[in-house]
């Protein structure tokens, strides 16, 4: 019998004051510093302004060996490391980006608990927070879900789209605060989000067209002699969509932070404070651009998720492939009529 063993190495919130003032005349390795800051790590470093010291919070390391003794620590020249998943060690450690995801989820749930309008007798939200959330929620529902998925099916997928929009938005924004990190700048996080969209898209397709219709769609509706060409292409098409979602969010968030760091790092690379006169305003400009990008990327991820789901939902209507797009251009009553006519037709 294999025992599931959970190793806890390092204590949660055991703070250590690590001091490392650089020696006089030592060249600062700016690229390594930046990559260290952007990458995931098993500890949270909180720099103290005006000193070379930082508080390091070590996070719990959770290793689950799938084989007996697979998680034995190994000594390498980089210090103590653990074997990977291929060697049979499942690493579920809490890392810096995991903490940021927890924090984003907590902030999201907290702010929605405070600001959501739950008093149904008062239909008009009061206050800045409530209005802001109402605006964003209505935007995602009307502009993204209904326009791309269609009036009938949109309510089913709106909760997912809202969740994904606000979660990405909060993670993107958290990275812009001092001492925080961008969880969406980690390819594993964005891949997991894209995987959720991928699974939901396939489920939507199977729901709309049935398993047979879903599989028939993979053949592209061509003569069977062409199937050997069409099926691989269609299957490839299935997987490039979530891959593009993953890379877009990841690359955008990572690149923005690296640019800010590099602009500030120029001061140290040139070794003169005068560079700061140019570098700091530029970094500020990029920072505001990043604020905009945080919104745009959350929007684009949600928009494309809605679009993919809309395409899957439209799979059920074989006589009318432009169904989801048609809905987007019809307003109010016209769209309703179209929906009814469609319901009768199918």
């Amino acid at each position: 019998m294999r025992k599931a063993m959970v190793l806890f190495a390092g204590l949660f919130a055991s703070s250590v004051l690590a001091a490392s003032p650089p020696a006089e005349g030592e060249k600062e390795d700016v690229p390594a510093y930046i990559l260290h800051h952007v990458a995931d790590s098993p500890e949270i470093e909180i720099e103290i302004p005006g000193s070379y010291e930082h508080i390091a919070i070590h996070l719990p390391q959770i290793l689950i060996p799938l084989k007996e003794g697979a998680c034995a620590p190994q000594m390498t020249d980089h210090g103590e490391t653990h074997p990977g998943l291929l060697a049979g060690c499942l690493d579920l450690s809490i890392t810096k980006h995991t903490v940021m995801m927890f924090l984003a989820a907590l902030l999201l749930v907290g702010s929605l608990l405070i600001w959501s309008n739950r008093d149904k007798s008062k239909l008009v939200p009061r206050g800045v927070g409530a209005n802001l959330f109402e605006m964003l929620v209505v935007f995602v529902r009307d502009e993204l879900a209904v326009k791309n998925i269609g009036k009938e099916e949109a309510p089913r997928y709106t909760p997912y789209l809202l969740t994904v929009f606000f979660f990405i938005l909060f993670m993107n924004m958290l990275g812009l605060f001092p001492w925080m990190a961008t969880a969406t700048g980690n390819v594993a996080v964005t891949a997991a989000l894209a995987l959720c969209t991928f699974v939901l898209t396939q489920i939507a397709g199977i729901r709309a067209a049935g398993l047979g219709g879903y599989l028939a769609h993979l053949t592209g509706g061509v003569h069977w002699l062409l199937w050997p060409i069409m099926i691989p292409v269609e299957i490839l098409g299935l997987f490039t969509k979530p891959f593009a979602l993953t890379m877009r969010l990841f690359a955008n968030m990572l690149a923005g932070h690296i640019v800010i760091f590099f602009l500030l790092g120029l001061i140290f690379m040139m070794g003169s404070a005068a560079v700061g006169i140019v570098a700091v305003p530029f970094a500020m400009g990029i920072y505001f651009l990043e604020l905009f990008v945080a919104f745009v990327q959350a929007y684009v991820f949600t928009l494309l998720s809605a679009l993919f789901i809309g395409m899957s939902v439209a799979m059920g209507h074989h006589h009318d492939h432009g169904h989801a797009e048609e809905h987007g251009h019809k307003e109010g009553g016209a769209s309703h009529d179209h929906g009814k006519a469609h319901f009768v037709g199918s």
Partner: protein
Amino acid sequence: MTNLALAFLSAGIGAGLAIIGAGLGIGKLAASAMEATGRQPAAGGDIRTSMIIAAALIEGATLFALVICVLLATKA
């Protein structure tokens, strides 16, 4: 030149070429969208949505190229 230097050089040139393509593509897209909005301002919302979708798809294809460049630069 060593192989390592060539890999770094190709990563840099590749990233630049990919960005030229994406810049041209998104630039033409934005130009057409603005012309269309100017011609028919009422359709501005729909045009903007379609523009963002197309821009995101172009960006996606560019990012595939950039990933290859990053792989070249890091695995070299």
